[in-house]
Every structure is written in C-alpha cells, then in structure tokens.
C-alpha cells in the first residue's frame, strides 16, 4: 500500500494544475451539496416549527362564558380532526404578552388582562383540515375572530420540497460533471503513462497494481474536494450564525450541532471517495482493455 500511496503522491505532485482543477470542481460540487443539505434540513426545521405551532387560533368575545368554551372544545374534539386544543385565558395571554415585551416597559404599563382576549389554540391532525376547523370556530357565537396559518405552512411545504428537488438535481448534475472532469484528467495521466503501463504489463504486474495509483488519485480528489467544500460551508455558516439567529428568532435550529456537521462531512467524504475512485477506475480501465 505504501508503494501505491507513494506512486499516487508522485502522480499528484507531477501535474499540480491538473490536480488543482480536479479538486476545484470537486470543491464546487461539495460546496453546493453542503449548502443544499443545510438548506433542506433548515427548511424542514422551520416547517416543523410552524407545523407544531397552534395552527388555528380563535379569539373569544369578552362575554363568552367558560361553559361555552368547554362546549366548543368538545365539539372540536368530536370532529376527530383535532390533534391538540389549548385554552389561553386572559391572564395567560397577559403573561405571554409580558414575556414577549419584557424589554419594553412602556408597552407593559399600558396593557392589562382585561383588554387581552381569551383564545383557543387548535392544532389539526392534518393541515388539510384547517379550513374546516376554522369554519366550526367561526360559526360559534362566542368567537370574535379566527386566524389560521395554512398559507405559511403550505408555502413552506412547497419551498422545502422545491429546495430538495432542485438541490438534488443540481448536486447530481455537478456530481456527474465532477466525475467526467476527474475521468478526463486521470485519462490524460494514463495516456501519458501508456508506455510505462505496457512495460508493467510485460514484466508481470497484475491489473490491480496498475489500477491502484490512479484509483487512489481519484479518491484523493474526491476526499479533498469533499473536505474543502464542507469546510468552506461550515466557515460561512459559523460566520453568519449570529445574523441567521437574529433573522429566525424563535426558531431554534442554530447553531447547527457539531455532530450533525460531522455526520454531513462523513457522508460527503464517502460520496467523494466513491465519485473519485469510480472516475479513476473508469478512466484507467478504458486504457487497460
């Protein structure tokens, strides 16, 4: 193995610009792959956040009695389309308001429990039931206003799905391009070593002995590209984390756990090694036929 690694290192060292080109295209592929993976995971987290939030909120009139609220709750549960129902009293609403505005004493002074409405927060078992549940709530005489966030969730679902599909498409295309470029670069090196390969054949080298340095070379391109692409994305992510945390306040998916990033790196290294070694194998096999 040491012999093969030495030969591989010699191959890499002797044509630095070709090696640089191969690694660069791999870096680009894995940079995009990492961005897509993080975007997909991030949008999924945002979607989950909205899905687990109360999806329909009904605000009650001041004169609505507790019995009326109980009645409504039972009616909702009876539909079988409701996952969770939570009643928020005027006092709880004030508590929430205080928490949300703890840094603005002026706003706190002006608000009392009496001016905040009690509400019922409802989560549906399926997003398609939201409209139906909202209609039940709106028909109730004690309900003043109903708001629901179906549009946001639907838009997010569509965005997540688009990010996944387009991302996968782009990554697959870039993966294919990387493979072809690595194949062409290794083919050039194999062509330059044709005479040497012939001699090795004649003096009894097995195919594996001839193949291995080129396959290892491809593997090196893949591994280096995966590591550098991932590293660049991780650096960018760390740099922009404060900004993103601010932007997504309330949705806690940042900073991304190191274990998750390491798992992403592991996956990308595996894929990189596969793309590189497969390209190297294809390139050299053509010449060994």
């Amino acid at each position, binding site marked *: 193995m040491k*012999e093969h690694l030495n030969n591989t290192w*010699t191959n890499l060292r002797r044509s630095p610009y070709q090696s640089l080109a191969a690694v660069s295209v791999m870096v680009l592929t894995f940079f995009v792959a990492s961005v897509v993976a993080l975007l997909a995971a991030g949008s999924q987290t945002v979607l989950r956040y909205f899905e687990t939030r109360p999806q329909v909120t009904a605000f009650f009139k001041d004169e609505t009695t507790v019995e009326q609220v109980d009645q409504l709750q039972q009616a909702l549960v009876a539909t079988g389309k409701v996952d969770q129902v939570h009643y928020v009293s005027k006092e709880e609403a004030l508590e929430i308001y205080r928490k949300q505005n703890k840094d603005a004493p002026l706003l706190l002074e002006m608000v009392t429990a009496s001016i905040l409405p009690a509400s019922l927060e409802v989560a549906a078992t399926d997003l398609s039931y939201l409209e139906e549940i909202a209609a039940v709530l709106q028909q109730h005489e004690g309900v003043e206003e109903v708001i629901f966030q179906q549009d946001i969730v639907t838009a997010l679902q569509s965005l997540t799905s688009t990010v996944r599909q387009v991302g996968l498409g782009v990554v697959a295309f870039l993966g294919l391009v990387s493979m072809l470029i690595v194949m062409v670069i290794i083919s050039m090196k194999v062509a330059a070593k044709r005479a040497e390969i012939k*001699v090795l*054949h*004649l*003096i*009894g080298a*097995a*195919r594996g002995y001839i193949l291995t340095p080129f396959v290892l070379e491809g593997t090196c391109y893949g591994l280096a590209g995966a590591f550098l692409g991932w590293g660049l994305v991780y650096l960018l992510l760390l740099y922009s984390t404060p900004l993103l945390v601010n932007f997504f306040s309330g949705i806690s998916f940042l900073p991304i756990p190191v274990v998750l990033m390491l798992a992403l790196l592991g996956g990308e290294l595996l894929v990189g090694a596969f793309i590189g070694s497969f390209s190297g194998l294809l390139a050299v096999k053509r010449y060994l036929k």
Partner: protein
Amino acid sequence: MIKFDKVTKKFGSITALSAVSFEIPKNSFVFIVGPSGAGKSTIVHLLLREYLPTSGKIKVSKQDLAKLTKKELVALRRQIGVVFQDFKLLADRTVFENVALPLKFVKNDAEQIGKEVRQVLKLVGLTERAALFPAQLAGGELQRACLARAIVNCPEIVIADEPTGNLDPQTAVQIVDLLKKVNEMGSTVIIATHNAQIVNQFNQRVIALAQGELISDQPESQYPLTK
C-alpha cells in the same frame, strides 16, 4: 519447456513468421539469430503473448498461450524475465526501484526485497548506480539494469531481445556472460540477436531465421551466415 508448433504470424499482408516449429528444453541456452526482419522479435513478442499467432500453437511449460486466462497470463509473465532491446526502464524510478518492481508484484517484505535487489545489482555490477535514474546511466549500464530487473525474481525463462544491440563489443560480451551465469543458475535463456561475433564466441544452440522462416536449428553451432 517452450514449444512452437507450426507458428505463423501475419500482420496484414506481411508474414513475420511462417510455420516455424522448434522446442527449447528446460535450462537451455539458445540464440535465435537472423538479419533484421527475420522474425526474431516476433518470437519474443509471441512468447510474452503480446499478441497471438495467426496459426499454430505456442506452449510454455505445457500451457497453450492462446488459452491463458488473464490471471494465468500474469503468472506466465512473472515466470519470464525480459531484457528489452530498448531497455524499457521506467524513467521516473531509480535503478534500485526499477529492479525491485517484479519483486513488488509478489512480495510485501521491503527488507527482503531490498536484500534481493542488492544481490542482483552486485551480480550485474551496478551497486554503485542503484540510486541513479535511467537517464543518468550509460548504454551498457542500462542494459545491465534491464538484465537485473529480468532476473531478480529468478524466472524460469529469460528472454533477451538484441541485448547487445547498442553496445561496444567488450560490454556486449559482459552482458552475454551474465546471461550465461543466469543460465547456469537454472534459468532457460533465449537470446535474439544478429551479433555474429557473440554467437560464435559462446558456441551454443542456434536457431536461425530468414524472412520469417526457420532455416536451421543446430546445437553448439556458429552464426550460420558466417559459415
């Protein structure tokens, strides 16, 4: 050991060998002689199974070369050491590394490989040149390095294609002397050459070819054209 049975090799309309038959027993020392274009190198290429005969059979150690699998072909080539006319040493490796190659195909023990390579380099007189690259060697040294690579794994057969082609008479004799030593150590040695002086000096079996045909096959003979 080696059997050519009515072997013909054609390259398009050109007949390089025409129904050539001969046998070379184990541990022989044989010259294959003839002028340029006689078919000497074709025999070497056929023995290495670089290509197959157009017709006829070639057997080495009772194996029909036409029927070898890829693995068997690799095994066959490991049994044959070749001294190429143009040396075919790898330019980016030192003499030591070039000579070590056939051993590296079959062994992993670097210490043992080193020991065996040093022994062979000593035998061919290249100990001092071990760290040099082929481009830094003289013609005779290149030929000796090539010979060292051919014999380092003690092959059953050593084939030398015009081993004295570009050498001065004294170096040429040294090279053939080395090949004789290799033969005495147990290998079958086949030398394809048109060097009459060398052939006559060693007085061994001579298979003579002309225009692809076998014209004579004599034990302990002289170069036929000088008779």
